């Protein structure tokens, strides 16, 4: 089977402009089923713009995005939840809007997967940041999407909450869900990403594994974050 045939998401020469500024300059990459891709880069690199185009929130000015037949689940950087509604009411609302056939079944499944069944009747405003993010991700997974897009998913979470979140996400990937996430946390990208996509000023500078990025940076520094910064400097950023 060719790489293209097994790709869950295929991005070709995507360009996005905001006024006179080019936020994305001909970005291309493929994502296979079950793959975990970390999109990294400095501020203003175009990470969120890329994810919002993949999620269908924005349209590219040129280029194409091929998505799998199933839904693409999107988890925005900040929890997109109604704080006055309970966990179950949030899940139920979005399940109905997603036109999920078995609404209650989907809600119960997500409550179980996120271990939030006991808090299902609590208003979201009363949950911790970590639990709110779990509900946020659960909403993105309601329609059993073939791919999950996470925009800086661990921002504001403590180490224990981060670990629980990644356990959950990696389990999804293990079950065949393609995961693409953006992050400023380079160590997290190295640890959880099968592949790294490095963006800077809207340009794709690198697409490969963490070890390949380390090698591309010269491999002299054992610290991955320093190697990443050296790589950016090499590329003039």
């Amino acid at each position: 089977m060719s790489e293209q045939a097994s790709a869950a998401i295929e991005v070709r020469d995507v360009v996005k402009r905001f006024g006179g500024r080019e936020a994305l300059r001909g970005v291309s990459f493929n994502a296979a089923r079950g793959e975990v891709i970390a999109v990294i880069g400095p501020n203003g690199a175009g990470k969120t713009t890329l994810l919002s185009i993949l999620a269908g929130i924005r349209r590219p000015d040129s280029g194409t995005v091929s998505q799998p037949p199933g839904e693409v689940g999107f988890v925005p950087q900040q929890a997109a939840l109604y704080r006055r509604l309970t966990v179950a009411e949030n899940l139920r609302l979005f399940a109905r809007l997603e036109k999920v056939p078995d609404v209650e079944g989907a809600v119960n499944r997500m409550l179980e997967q996120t271990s939030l069944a006991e808090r299902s009747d609590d208003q979201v405003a009363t949950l911790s940041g970590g639990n709110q993010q779990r509900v946020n991700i659960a909403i993105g997974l309601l329609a059993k999407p073939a791919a999950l897009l996470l925009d800086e998913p661990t921002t504001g979470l403590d180490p224990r909450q981060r670990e629980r979140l990644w356990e959950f996400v990696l389990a999804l990937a293990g079950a065949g869900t393609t995961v693409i996430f953006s992050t400023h946390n380079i160590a997290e990208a190295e640890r959880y990403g099968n592949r790294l996509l490095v963006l800077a000023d809207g340009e794709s500078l690198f697409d490969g594994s963490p070890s390949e990025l380390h090698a591309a940076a010269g491999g002299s520094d054992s610290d991955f974050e320093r190697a990443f910064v050296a790589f950016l400097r090499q590329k003039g950023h």
Partner: protein
Amino acid sequence: MRWLLLKDLQILRRSPLVTALLVIYPIAIAVLIGFALSRGPEKPRVAFLNEVPTGTPLNLGGKNFDVVGARSELCDKIDCIPVSSEQQARDMVQSGDVLGALILPPDLVTRLESLAGLSPQQPYVRVLVNEEDPVKAGLVDDRISSLVTRANLKISKAVVGTAASYLDLIVNGGNLSLLGQTIDILGLSKAGGILHAIAAELGPHDPFAQPLQQVITFSRLAEQNLNLAKPLLRSVAHPIAVRKDIVSGSPPSLDTFAIAVAATFTLMFVTVLLVAGSLALEREENAFARLTRGLVGRFALLGEKIALGVVASIAVTLVMLAGLSIFVEVDWSRVGLFLPAIVLGGAAWAAFGAAIGAGAGEVRASSLLAFMVSLPIAFLSLVPSGTVSAGLFHALEVVRALFPFHAAETALSAALDPAASGLGPALVHLAVLALAYTALARVALRRFS
């Protein structure tokens, strides 16, 4: 859309304080404004101090005036608060208990009676006012001037009547009572008859015949001119009568106008604040991006918010009308007319609120903007024609055309009162505004992404 609508209603249910404020505050304000507009001080409270000795009769030109009846008539026009001293009257005016104080001095009757005598003295009444602000000062001036004008009119009628009776005495003769004596007055008419008889006796060549003829001519001319003077005097007593022709407009009753204004204020506050806040909340809770990535279209989202505004408008306005019907008569048989007015008024205001919410993008900013924009529009829409310059009123007409307040108030007035007109055009106006503001909100939603 219905799931989003249910979600918004659930959120409202979970925010009882906000919901209560959103409902109770505008209703309270609307009712106060409505009644303040319709129920001006028709009977302002005025302290009344009568220093004229009790039982003093008032006689003008031989005609007795009913002083007790005049006081009752006066107190029918104002709410007389009797006081026993000038200091008490001053205190009440100072504290704002009364709009002003009217003091009848002890010599008022004497001075009034002197008007019909040979040495008239100007009668006066004293007025105590507290002109703490220009509006109140103007109101007091208008009220007191109106009362004094009425009194002057009555007195001038009496004086003119006396003057006319004197003229009648000079022309036709009769008895005149003066200083306890009765004097018989011949009168020009009888004097002319006597002179004619003497002239006939003298013959044409008598040396007194020509001078006598001159006296007869003078007597006739005097009689004719004095007869003409009587209707002239009567017209001076009441020179201008008012004949009112309604050129345009068929205004509703003051009660209906008050209800319509109160309901329009309620519609405005509830829908604009609710819809603007609810739309801005979608962005603040980051749900907008999630909703509009294929789950809900932007127009559908706006439609849902406008539907929320209309539902709230119907509920709140009907509750307000039910409450008002305890105090004033609301013709519920016309519900088929005022329901469309509430729906379209609510839709226009909701679309306006959506435009504000989409433009502001934050709940607090949208609430502030809603107040800042809506209140001046409401007050400018209530300025009647003829009270400001023509140029300014043309500008106000543009404001009325561009914002839903005037159209909503006209539609509600016409729907509530069969005497008022303009329901159809007002409903069309509201529908056009609803569409226009929805389009504007859709453009403003681009800032949300």
